[in-house]
């Protein structure tokens, strides 16, 4: 846990941040409106005696007071999808519309892919890219269970995804996952600055290609579930470079408290606009941890 000390200067109320790492995260799920209406699903849960609470910031997100929500019939039938609360944020920031063409560059296991598909009401096209063959299987299985029929799966290295001109691209990048400690204790013990710097090379490559594949006027969302600035603000700064072609838009989900992206790290000044990006900390909303940046291509 000492590894987190490197964030002492950037995380507000650091002691609470450190303390909450030991508390397990509650179970949560997203209502899949491709298959059921919200009110019908809530009625079913009530009938089944399942205790739940809607997220204050997202009516389709539910906290479930049940040990194995994956075993619910509603999950088997694809009426809900077990998904961590903050994992529902990046698609909302991406804001895909029915009929658009959307690329999810690092898609497996498909929680965000299927959320995008549901926001598009199964219309238009979602390309779900996942290079690893082993990880295509859960991606495909989740898309099929949830009835997402506007999704096509590809298997390119995201840095070399060859072509297309997309309205929106999501880069939910592979990361050191520091923000997942509450779900799987031990994550932090595998983290190091070296690992973050290794991942940074991949993350910059992915984001640069995503920017290339986006239509003028289109949107790119970059997200990770980690705190390391090396994998967050520094990636966004490097990928955007000096180009005036891109601008950062403020990330703000009403009802969910974010901290602004940092503009200084290890004594080095970063681009001021990075304060438009959002850091979500576990002790502030009682969640995991996430970072989200929204980029507009002019």
């Amino acid at each position, binding site marked *: 846990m000492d590894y987190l000390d490197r964030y002492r200067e950037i995380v507000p109320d650091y002691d609470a941040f450190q303390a909450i790492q030991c508390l397990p995260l509650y179970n949560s799920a997203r209502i899949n409106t491709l298959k059921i209406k919200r009110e019908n699903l809530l009625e079913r849960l009530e009938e089944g005696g399942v205790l739940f609470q809607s997220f204050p910031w997202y009516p389709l997100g539910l906290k479930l007071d049940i040990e194995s*929500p*994956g075993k619910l019939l509603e999950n088997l039938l*694809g009426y809900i999808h077990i998904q*961590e609360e903050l*994992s529902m944020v990046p698609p909302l920031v991406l804001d895909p519309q029915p009929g658009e063409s959307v690329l999810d560059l690092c898609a497996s296991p498909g*929680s965000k892919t299927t959320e995008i598909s549901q926001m598009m009401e199964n219309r238009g096209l979602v390309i779900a890219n996942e290079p690893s063959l082993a990880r295509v299987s859960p991606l495909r299985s989740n898309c099929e269970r949830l009835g*997402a*029929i506007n999704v*096509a799966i590809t298997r390119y290295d995201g840095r070399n995804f060859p072509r297309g001109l997309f309205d929106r691209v999501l880069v939910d990048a592979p990361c050191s996952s520091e923000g997942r400690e509450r779900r799987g204790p031990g994550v932090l013990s595998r983290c190091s600055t070296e690992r973050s710097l290794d991942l940074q090379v991949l993350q910059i490559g992915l984001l640069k290609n995503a920017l290339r594949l986006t239509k003028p006027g289109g949107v790119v969302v970059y997200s990770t579930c980690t705190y390391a600035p090396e994998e967050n603000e520094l990636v966004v700064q490097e990928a955007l470079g000096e180009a005036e072609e891109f601008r950062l838009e403020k990330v703000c989900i009403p009802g969910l408290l974010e901290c602004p992206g940092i503009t200084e790290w290890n004594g080095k000044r970063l681009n001021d606009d990075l304060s438009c990006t959002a850091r979500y900390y576990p002790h502030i909303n009682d969640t995991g941890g996430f970072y989200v940046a929204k980029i507009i291509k002019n």
Partner: protein
Amino acid sequence: MSPRSSRIRNIFEPLDKSLIAKLWQDRFGIPEQAFSGCKFFRKARSIWVISDVDLPRLSYETIGMRIMSCKDRPWKPTTSALQVFGRYAAKNLIHLNREEAMIFLEGSSQGIESDCEPGYVVVFYRGDVLGCGLYSHGKLISQIPKERRMASTVESETCPD
């Protein structure tokens, strides 16, 4: 496997919608309108359905949802496809009670009285389509894929996301 080699392996050929719609109409009485806004592809002996869009020129691992297999006769609908399109079925469907539904969801076989024609059927429980069953000689054999069965369910979000 690189995308280059999978491009050789994966050949998705477009299929005429009316051809597929007729099969579903004949077996389940599902009207062609149920597939409005969809288009179909064939790869090897499987048929896939996707929303009606122009696909960019890419090497695809899957295109939409696999809805049926033509490997054997008769053709077999997938449970996933029945959960989407099966609610429009007008024939060859079976409604189960709670106890029967649990047996079906565990992937087991059971005796059921029905006037369905022998072959694949849409299985319902309280208005929900549970999936695909095979009905033959008074016996309903569950076709629910292993990973979607009641007993073997695992939480879907096991990978970092």
